[in-house]
């Protein structure tokens, strides 16, 4: 996972999103925000974060959890964390 490119991350993310939002046809794009996805509320947001952390074996800070606005930012942050991993 360490050398994961953005495409690869997006693919894995899509799987997680589809599961959390119970939406098998969901397609992600960088500018996507919570308002674009049905049921993306604060409860599902935490479910999503926890599922992503488990999948990518990374951890977000409280500030990151609160400030993430778009799918693109999320993917970027995951990539950053994967690269920084020892």
């Amino acid at each position: 996972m360490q050398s994961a490119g953005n495409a690869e991350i997006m693919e894995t993310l899509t799987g997680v999103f589809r599961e959390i939002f119970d939406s098998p046809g969901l397609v992600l794009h960088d500018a996507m925000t919570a308002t674009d996805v049905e049921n993306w509320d604060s409860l599902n947001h935490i479910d999503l974060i926890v599922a992503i952390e488990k999948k990518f074996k990374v951890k977000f800070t409280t500030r990151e959890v609160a400030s993430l606005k778009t799918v693109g930012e999320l993917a970027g942050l995951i990539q950053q964390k994967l690269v920084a991993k020892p």
Partner: protein
Amino acid sequence: MQQQTSVNPATENLNLDYGALLAASRRLDPAKTSRKMKIALLSDAATQRFVPVLRVLFHRQGVDAEIYEAPFDGLELEIYNPASGIYQFKPDFVVVLNSVQALRANFLKRTGDSVSFTEETIARMMKIWDGIHSHLTATVIQSNFVLPYERFFGNFDHKTPESFYATVGSINSKLVEASRLRGGVLINDVESVASWLGRRVWFEERFWDSAKYFCALECLPYVGKNIVDVVMAGLGRVVKCVVLDLDNTLWGGVIGDDGIEGIQLSEHGEGEAFYRFQLYLRELRRRGVLLAVCSKNEKANALLPFERHPEMVLKLEDIAMFVANWNDKADNIRQIRETLNIGIDSMVFLDDNPFERNLVRELVPGITVPELPEDPADYVRAISELNLFETTSFSAEDSKRTEMYRAESQRREEQAGFASVDEFLQSLEMRMTVARFDSFHLPRIAQLMQRSNQFNVTTRRLSEVECKVLMEDERWFPLYAKLTDRLSDHGLIAVVTLEEREDSLAIRDWLMSCRVLVRGVEQFLMNRAVEHAKKLELARITAEFISTAKNGMVKDFFQQFGFAKVEEDGDGRSLWVLETGTYQPARTFIRPAVEAIASSVSGTATLSAK
């Protein structure tokens, strides 16, 4: 957290993965459940995500749970307002879930010392219980507190009562103590769940801060299962019997091949795992779980270790029923079930052999067959982790249960030697005490209410609190009966509740332990009920029968005593009436016990309210 990768149906139902449960919660089918249950959830933490998890776990047990979530952190407001949602909801159980994080916030802002903090906390909980019980007959399921990870004094935390750690410990033990002194409060040992999973995983401070989650999401299902276990036990789903394989389960090796010197069983060394497993099983037996043996063996071989092996922990006296032959195990288990007269869903089967486990799972639906790990060193751990032996009561009678079942088989053997059943019953010198419910007997009464399925005409599952309400109501005559005979003291074996109405005496509950069938117990009790109606100058006794999957043995119960059926609906509910003037006392060889005679001298002292 461990991943469940197996597709074995036996373990599929045990999957406690948060994501899987949340997904399953969206596809619950109430048609696949057999009963409804109302649960109210009161918490000082957020429970929105806990609710779907709980619903899935209940659904697995065949229960369609309707869950009422009190407004967040609104415990007191909810309880002290008689018009609040919880009282309109009328729950069967009230789950009070307190978080140590909320307690921590209060503790760190305390103005007094830790002792007064502890006292105030306990007083507050007790007021909440009393508040609930003054409006509802629901059973409260109270959580304890997870021990904190903050070590303000290091190891010295334990030495000073001022530390937060010591305070939480002290609150936990006082909470349990307070719950022991009153009925209707059961404990949800969240601390034990958290410590098993590990507090490193449990505490997720990010989501406590932002969302008031009391634990990491992955831990939620484990808390949920713990609550479901308590509720199901409260509804009477308890394990009454463990059926045991012998070779490679109770000892290492095969007794028929290896002989008494060849099997592995010893306090130290190679056979230690089996020795330790037997100690575990003996402790279960002491706490009232029956042990039965079901082994593919020559019986003489199977008995050998029990009779001759010096390090055998379990003795024949510990085994309620011993079956060793070459028949298939499903047949043998059915035979054990019939002889012990217990429900198949109250049985657990332990066998090291996967083939036998699958066969029994397949052919004996309803029985619990846990996977056993390959290494016998892990048997106890694997079984404990499933928390199979949840119960809501323990009484002195429980520890004598095996003895009573063994006496029963002795009685059956003796019976063969008598010319007639009557002669045999007479020889038993049976004595019965019938008395109004009293606080001393309430736990056993409530237990019988929860456990009796077969000899139970209405199967109302009254809790201890509800029994206490009847006890204090003058219109009611809630009675229990105790039986002794020459061979043993059977203890409290029957409960009959009678309600005085304008023109009749109504039989509301009538249930008996199946240990005492065909002894004349019900005849004795019916005679007493009729006498009582006459004393009250009531010309009729009315009764209700509610048919269930398990109480077929009492479907003709009222007819047998001359009751006439006056009403019947399509749901298996029927109403019966007896004119007391025409009643012919039923024949019984049971005589009143001495103390019962003494108290009946002073009129109806044993029956009427004070």
